């Protein structure tokens, strides 16, 4: 009797381990040699309203990699076509990036986003990226030089996402979806430009709902990082005054009047001068004060233009509309807000707090 019980218990244990390991005949076959967990998909516009999707295969094994492109009318159809054309089965569980072409972005990417959201295999943390230029061609040309191009690209995005490093815009699926679906906000994505020798960060693409309407770059993009995305910049060069501000931290205070006609947007900045090549004597507090004023007006002007542009395009990536929400009143309709936003008088104010130069100035007088 005891023996029976012992055997029974062991059998139960064995059965449980068997079940826990997922070794059941009715689950999917995920033998690592037989699948290719793709790391990214690149989607661009094909002929006649079709989508052209491409990726690098095989993503794992040390075989010769190839770029595979398919023209399909539905996104998931592409995955099926890959399976029919490649000896391994495509799995999307390890997908890390989705590269969308600029032209496709201009047409709207709602349907693509919804496909990603519906698939429980696809993580909500995958990065969305807009690319200017022909990404497939670039991939083909890169395969010989840099096999792990996709991985290094992913690491770059991940590096800047974590702890808000403050150089470039990085947006994942969850953030994009939230900005897309909540009222009073519009999503944005990073834009990368394909050049002959590499991929370079161009700026931030602003979306009106799911359609790309504008790309902001250079100083505008820096300002955007500062006031919205990261609230931090490693360096902020202002060539006009031959100065570079470093470790720029910002704090935003938004004030909106009760009639919702004017908004005061105050940006408090803490920074220090990292480089100066001009003629002024920045050791002199007065001169420093002057410089500060100059930078403030310059940034105010630039930011004002940027916000003006947003108003004209009716996009609100800064989520200014959220400021109208109150704990004890009914939120206004999004349409009404957009109408108001268009006409709103937005005043920009910068308050800069600069640490003076700590080391010697090359043009000190008494030297």
């Amino acid at each position, binding site marked *: 009797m005891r023996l029976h019980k012992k055997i029974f218990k062991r059998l139960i244990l064995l059965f449980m381990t068997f079940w826990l390991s997922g070794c059941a005949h*009715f*689950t*999917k076959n995920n033998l690592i040699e037989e699948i290719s967990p793709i790391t990214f998909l690149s989607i661009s516009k094909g002929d006649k309203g079709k989508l052209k999707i491409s990726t690098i295969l095989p993503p794992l094994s040390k075989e010769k990699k190839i770029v595979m492109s398919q023209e399909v009318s539905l996104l998931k159809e592409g995955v099926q076509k890959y399976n029919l054309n490649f000896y391994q089965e495509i799995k999307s569980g390890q997908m890390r990036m989705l590269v969308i072409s600029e032209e496709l972005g201009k047409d709207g990417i709602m349907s693509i986003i919804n496909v990603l959201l519906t698939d*429980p295999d696809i993580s909500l943390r995958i990065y969305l990226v807009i690319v200017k230029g022909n990404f497939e061609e670039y991939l083909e040309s890169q395969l010989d030089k840099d096999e792990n191009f996709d991985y290094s690209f992913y690491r770059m995005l991940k590096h800047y996402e974590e702890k808000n490093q403050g150089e470039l815009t990085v947006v994942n699926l969850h953030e994009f979806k939230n900005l897309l*679906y*909540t009222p009073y906000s519009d999503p944005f994505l990073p834009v990368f430009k394909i050049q002959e020798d590499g991929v370079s960060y161009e700026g931030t693409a602003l979306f009106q709902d799911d359609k790309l309407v504008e790309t902001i770059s250079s100083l505008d993009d820096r300002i955007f990082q500062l006031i919205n995305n990261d609230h931090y910049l490693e360096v902020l060069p202002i060539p006009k005054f031959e100065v570079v501000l470093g470790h720029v931290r910002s704090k935003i205070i938004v004030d909106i009047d009760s009639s919702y006609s004017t908004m005061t947007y105050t940006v408090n900045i803490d920074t220090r001068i990292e480089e100066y090549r001009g003629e002024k004597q920045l050791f002199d507090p007065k001169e420093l004060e002057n410089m500060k004023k100059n930078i403030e007006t310059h940034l105010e002007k630039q930011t004002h233009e940027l916000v003006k542009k947003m108003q004209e395009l009716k996009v609100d990536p800064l989520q200014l509309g959220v400021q109208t*929400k*109150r704990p*004890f009143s009914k939120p206004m309709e999004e349409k009404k807000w957009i109408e108001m936003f268009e006409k709103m008088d937005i005043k920009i104010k910068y308050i800069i707090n600069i640490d003076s130069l700590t080391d010697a100035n090359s043009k000190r007088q008494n030297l």
Partner: protein
Amino acid sequence: METHQLFKKNETYNGLYAMLLVNRLQMLYFFLIMPSILINPYMIWVLIAVGILSQLNLLLLSKWLLTRLSSNGYNGFVQLFGEKLVRFLSFIGLFFILLKLSVITLGFSEIIQTFMFPSTDTNFLVFFIFLFCCYVASKGVEHTIRFVLISFFCTFWMITFFVFFFFPPIAQLSDLYPLIPMDWKVENWKAFFLILSSYSGPEFLVFLGPWLKTNNKTFRYLSYGNALTVVEYVFLFIASLLYFGSNYLSKSKYPIINMARYFQNPVFERIDMVMLSFELFNLVFAVSLFLLLFYGASKIAFGKMSKPSSGKGLLFSVFLIFIGMVLVNELFWKSWEKQNFLLNLQIIAGSISYFLVPLIIVLVMKKKGVKKHAST
């Protein structure tokens, strides 16, 4: 072979167990889908208000548990209602248990299918869940009640992960606005009853009287359990509001699990799978308890109380429930509209049973003049 004594009573469990029983029976399935039905931030207040209402229910419940009658089990109920009525009531009770069992098991197996085994038939999953439950239930009521400790420690830690959502960049206070309702829609009533039904579960403690050690601290422990649930519900709901924003919340079918998918960990990439697997412990505990109650109730309903309880009888009733559940799965659960009907039915049934069972018992007690610890 030793005879199975499923309902024998060797020891009684103290207030801690009562607290855990209340808490775990309230955290079964509905809390996973609750945010997508509550949607509006002001529902936080409703959650708290219904929690207080549930506290009153527990007060009534503890009144019953304090009587000698409750510790007499079946005989106590017979003294209270008379045998015929008890048989009739337990017959009705069978449907309530069956409904609750179906909703929590099928709901859970559908979640497992969606997120873990997309190509597996849910009937298989139900089968395996039942296999484990059968094992637990065959150990008898005593051990099943003791299992609540395991189930609690396997599942409670998960909620601490959700603290992550309360910090920026995800948390924005404006996601919680407006805090007071501006207009009350019809859907909000559904949400209200869903909350009421989510709090249901402790009414089954009525039948566990013989195994609970009761004293004047019992109500306090029951309240702790209930309060813990309120905290958990509010915490999860606020977290989901911060994560999704109230506009997207209604579009997500399993908000809590989708939130868990957002966690990242360098070791386990899909923490949600680990969490879901652990959540099964809670399900297995509840289902085994309900299986035992079902078996007991069917014995009463069909007048077989004189026969000793046996493992075979339990197995037979589990088999019947399994068949019933597969039928419910095929006929109702798999199509979305009918599933909704079943969910609504459970929402109503849960609310009714939680509201009426303690109330009726206490009213009858008053009428019959049963007093605390009075020997009858």
